[in-house]
């Protein structure tokens, strides 16, 4: 427990220092609990998520970094590897491929990469996965774009 706390403090400092370096990621620690983090990530360009800002919730276990943090989307997103209702993310590095060398920051980067490169073969969102697997890129794009505009972009007017 002590080790995870120390490591999270170090990461917090690192995040403060690298804030300028990575404008796509904004990692914020909960004021009262260092094991709760939220992140705001920008949708990668040239994807249907471009222009959207997505909120992630991190729940860091006490065994961190030996155990991966639990991450989920708080913002609705239409993506084959994200559960549409719960926001759960299907990403290998958050499951069995986790390595203690990863940080919360790098997890955010991995999630951004996952948004740009969906894996329709292990879908949590079957509709999205089926669209991609059937080659209906246009359908996938328009659906994802619609939900990005609905949920992840500031409302106009």
């Amino acid at each position: 427990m002590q080790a995870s706390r120390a490591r999270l403090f170090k990461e917090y400092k690192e995040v403060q220092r690298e804030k300028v370096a990575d404008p796509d990621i904004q990692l914020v620690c909960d004021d009262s609990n260092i094991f709760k983090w939220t992140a705001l990530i920008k949708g990668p360009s040239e994807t249907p998520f471009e222009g959207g800002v997505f909120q992630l919730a991190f729940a860091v276990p006490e065994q961190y970094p030996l155990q991966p943090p639990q991450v989920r989307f708080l913002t609705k997103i239409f993506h084959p590897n994200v559960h549409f209702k719960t926001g759960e993310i299907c990403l290998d590095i958050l499951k069995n491929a986790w390595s203690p060398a990863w940080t919360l920051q790098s997890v955010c980067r991995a999630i951004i990469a996952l948004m740009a490169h969906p894996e329709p073969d292990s879908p949590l969102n079957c509709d999205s996965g089926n669209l991609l697997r059937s080659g209906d890129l246009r359908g996938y794009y328009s659906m994802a774009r619609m939900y990005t505009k609905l949920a992840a972009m500031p409302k106009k007017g």
Partner: protein
Amino acid sequence: MVSDSITNASIHAAPNNNNAARDVGKKKRVRFQFPFPVYDLLLFCTRICIYWLIFSKISRLFGDFQARSAKLKQCKLDVRREQWLSQGAVKNKDCKAEQNGVVEERKDRNNHHPFGNLGMRPGGGESDGSIHHHHHHDSDLDSNSPNSLTSSVLGSNYSETNFTGSSSSSSSSSSGGCCSGNITEDDEGGGDDGCLDDWEAVADALAANEKPKNPCLESPPEHDPIAQSGSPQETTIGSDGPSFGVENSKPQCARTIPKASGNGLAWRPDDAFRPQSLPNLAKQVSLPNSNRKHYGCGGVPWAYSGVVSAPSSCPICYEDLDFTDTSFLPCLCGFRLCLFCHKRILEEDSRCPGCRKPYEHEPVEAEASVHGGSLTFRLPRSCSLITRS
């Protein structure tokens, strides 16, 4: 120098008191004048050599970065030659004949073997390393120097055979007495090896670099006097080693990153977003090859460890690595971490954070199996002990 200043001080103080005291001081000075310059000379020489040793190591490092300009090398070469000659003049009192023998052997080696000219620095560094050992351990020059000679003669592969030769000689000469010294020295050579591989692969200007490398072949002989002068101060050399290894690993660190061929799900090979601080997934692919290569030359684990960067802080807990941690290499992939985190990981899932492969149960055993060269020397002893008892 210190003694000189003391006498001067006494002389300066003397006129204030009276003339008699001054005379005494003068007499004293006359009396002691003879021995002091000798000591001064020795001190001066040794100091210069120590400074030069540090300087040469640093400048060698920078040489790696700066495309190794031939002119610089030539200048350094001249300086080294001067150093060597001056050192030889001092040392001639002690071991004139031996030195000459060694020097002749080296000259022979350089003349006879064309690949000595192609000669990469690691080879030179290694043969140099083996000579280091001779002086450190005060073993016979005659018995060991032919060893390195034959190794270079036999080898069609310059660096590799030199590695084996030196590793065998080092392990034979050091019976576990000062392992750290051996490791650091070999580390240095190995680091250079990796460095050269790296530069060969990456830099197009290698053909131009081959020429500047040529002066390097003469550097090994001139390393030697420094080793001799440094031998009274083994501690300084020992402490030099690791830091050098650390600095040396920087270019390799830069090397491994562009190699990333994303076979993980999260990152594509052409992904510009991939953070460089992440464990390199491509290591799984790229490292076994380098393993094989190094094993092929007779098991040089420190060469391998030199290839991998040595971080200043543990990537798991972000605490600074101390000396024990930096020399601790639990996994073949070269991922370093502190002993504390290693223990915690062993208790949990026991997988290396760098390559995600399960750790060997006994990292010491793993290292022993890796230390192919030295293991062959140690095993017979233990076996014979067992059979006796």
